[in-house]
């Protein structure tokens, strides 16, 4: 009875302290960030610094609040990232049914004001309009739809095709393995951007063909990972034991090897998503991806070229922040997945 008491007292004590400091930090941080984003008093560079400091303070405050609520440290950045992912994926999936403005009809945009400044929630144009009078918020959401769809499709193709090729070549070995090795090394040796530009000139700029082009980037690394894991798994005694019970090669591959190879491959796939979101944005920025007026984050950022960004920074800032947060969140998720599923850290 005596032993747990001091612990209890200390916990109550720290909990209230955490609550107070957390609330203070969160309030001060968000106020600072809000002021910095709106003010014109400071030089841009200093303003950005103040903004970042405000955001960090707000996140630290949120962390304290979460710790006070849960009673143990919480990875707030991770959960903020996951919240963003849920929001952006949900918005992207439901985009056609959301009450959004005009995102790609440039004829209808003729009657709308161009470069309308962001009006905030409740305004006609919450995040402003671009030079065709199209709604930036709607374009950001529909852009998310394209960017994430392309990245997911490419990763899906790359994981399935690359994973299967890698598994078969690692299991069969011999000539098949050598040929696959040469091909995947050859694909890895081509600079990715040059390969994409070359493909972009040949293929028509549709979601399907861009997903295909991007999947070519993921296939070689997937092949390598799946092959390496298959080789280690195939040497394990349980594969021999299954063979000694009369399993044929197909069965060995599907029932013994595949379940052990899936996890490391999947965790690489999550990391790949963020790489491909960036790759898709680069392509669209260069004008060889999805074409205007259909929005993607890449071609939205490209709209800021030619002095537009200096006048109307929100044109670049909105898609830029979307891109940054999405990639950042997918990376956090991928890191978690790898930590959890990496065979090197797993017990035998």
């Amino acid at each position: 009875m005596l032993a747990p008491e001091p612990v209890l007292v200390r916990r109550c004590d720290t909990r209230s302290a955490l609550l107070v400091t957390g609330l203070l930090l969160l309030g001060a941080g968000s106020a600072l960030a809000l002021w910095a984003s709106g003010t014109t008093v400071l030089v841009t560079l200093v303003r950005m610094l103040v903004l970042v400091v405000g955001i960090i303070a707000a996140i630290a405050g949120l962390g304290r609040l979460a710790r006070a609520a849960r009673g143990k440290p919480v990875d707030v950045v991770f959960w903020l990232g996951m919240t963003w992912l849920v929001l952006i994926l949900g918005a992207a999936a439901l985009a056609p049914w959301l009450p959004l403005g005009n995102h790609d009809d440039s004829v209808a945009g003729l009657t709308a004001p161009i470069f309308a400044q962001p009006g905030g929630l409740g305004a006609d144009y919450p995040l402003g309009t671009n030079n065709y009078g199209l709604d930036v918020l709607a374009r950001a959401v529909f852009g998310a739809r394209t960017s994430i769809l392309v990245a997911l499709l490419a990763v899906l193709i790359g994981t399935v095709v690359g994973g299967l090729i890698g598994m078969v070549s690692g299991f069969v070995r011999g000539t098949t393995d050598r040929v696959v090795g040469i091909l995947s090394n050859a694909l890895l040796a081509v600079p990715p951007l040059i390969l994409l530009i070359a493909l972009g000139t040949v293929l028509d700029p549709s979601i399907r063909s861009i997903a295909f082009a991007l999947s070519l980037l993921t296939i070689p690394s997937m092949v390598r990972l799946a092959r390496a894991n298959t080789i280690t798994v195939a040497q394990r005694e349980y594969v021999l034991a299954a063979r000694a019970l009369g399993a044929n090669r197909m069965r060995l591959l599907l029932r013994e090897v595949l379940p052990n190879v899936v996890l490391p491959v999947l965790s690489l796939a999550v990391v790949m998503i963020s790489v491909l979101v960036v790759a898709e944005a680069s392509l669209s920025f260069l004008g060889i991806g999805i074409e205007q007026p259909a929005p993607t984050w890449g071609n939205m950022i490209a709209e800021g070229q030619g002095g537009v960004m200096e006048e109307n920074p929100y044109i670049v800032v909105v898609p830029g922040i979307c891109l940054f947060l999405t990639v950042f969140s997918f990376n956090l998720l991928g890191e978690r997945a790898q930590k959890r599923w990496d065979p090197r850290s797993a017990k035998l």
Partner: protein
Amino acid sequence: MSTHLLEVVDLRTVFHTARGDVRAVDGVSFSLAAGETLGLVGESGSGKSVLGRSVMGLISNSAMTTVSGQVLLEGTDVHALKPSARRRLWGPEIAMVFQDPMTSLNPVKRVGTHLTETLRRHLRCSRSEATERAVDLLRQVGIPEPARRLAQYPHELSGGMRQRVVIATALACDPRLLIADEPTTALDVTVQKQILDLLGSLVVERDMAMLLVSHDLGAVAGRTDRVQVMYAGRTVESGRTRPVFAAPEHPYTEALLASIPQLSHPPHTVLRAIEGNPPDMARPPLGCRFASRCSRVGEECTAVLPALSVVPSPVAADAAARAVACHHPVLPEPVAMEEVGHGR
């Protein structure tokens, strides 16, 4: 002869490596009847495991290996079968228990899946029948709460439990011949005894034949009918377990037995090891393979390979006659090796 379940005649397994041909098994013959247990002993690298796998047909002719000689399972040559026909033997006819239960169960498959998959494949029974049989099998190998174990993953079980599961999977399709490849090497001493007792009683219950491969002389001594001592891919001595261990005739068997520490020895007695290492099997010596380590080596030993010859036995026309491959066998004198008989 036809009463024998398994008949191995002059089996040779050669691996073609970059260093040359490695003769892992070099002309081994034996036979095994139902209900009988044959112990295969020898130190690491003597070809015991390769022999076990060659008998099963897991090692067969390929670009890298040549298997010659005959392995007759009830008259059919295992190595003459097509791979698909041979696969049908594995499970219902021959099964194998592997050395390390930590690695011979797939970590991502439940215990039940290991058992039911095999059952459903070979016996073509329904899911519920397979589950019923799986529970029954787990009970037979002495696993408490078998129904609950089916849903568990291998890492949730202890080493001894896992080896019991491995044995249960091997027995799933009622094999006639069980090859136990060092089944107790990775286990605790107390668990070793349990597993060996279990295997012994299963052999009797099911009238199986068992090939017990081990380097643990204690394990072999108490639980086999006959024993075959291997050295460098060849049989150096064979016969009934008790007389072979009581009065070894080959110097290698004698040295092997002498190297077992005895409880009766005073503490800090220096262990009697066999000097040197087994020969390089890519370049085997001309004469007896044990010659370089043998205490009784003579001139002819380094020049002429001794054949395995039957020792005249006091019991006439013994089917499991004592045979030894040595130019200078140890003279049979009544030596008491009581401790070995009891094993661990």
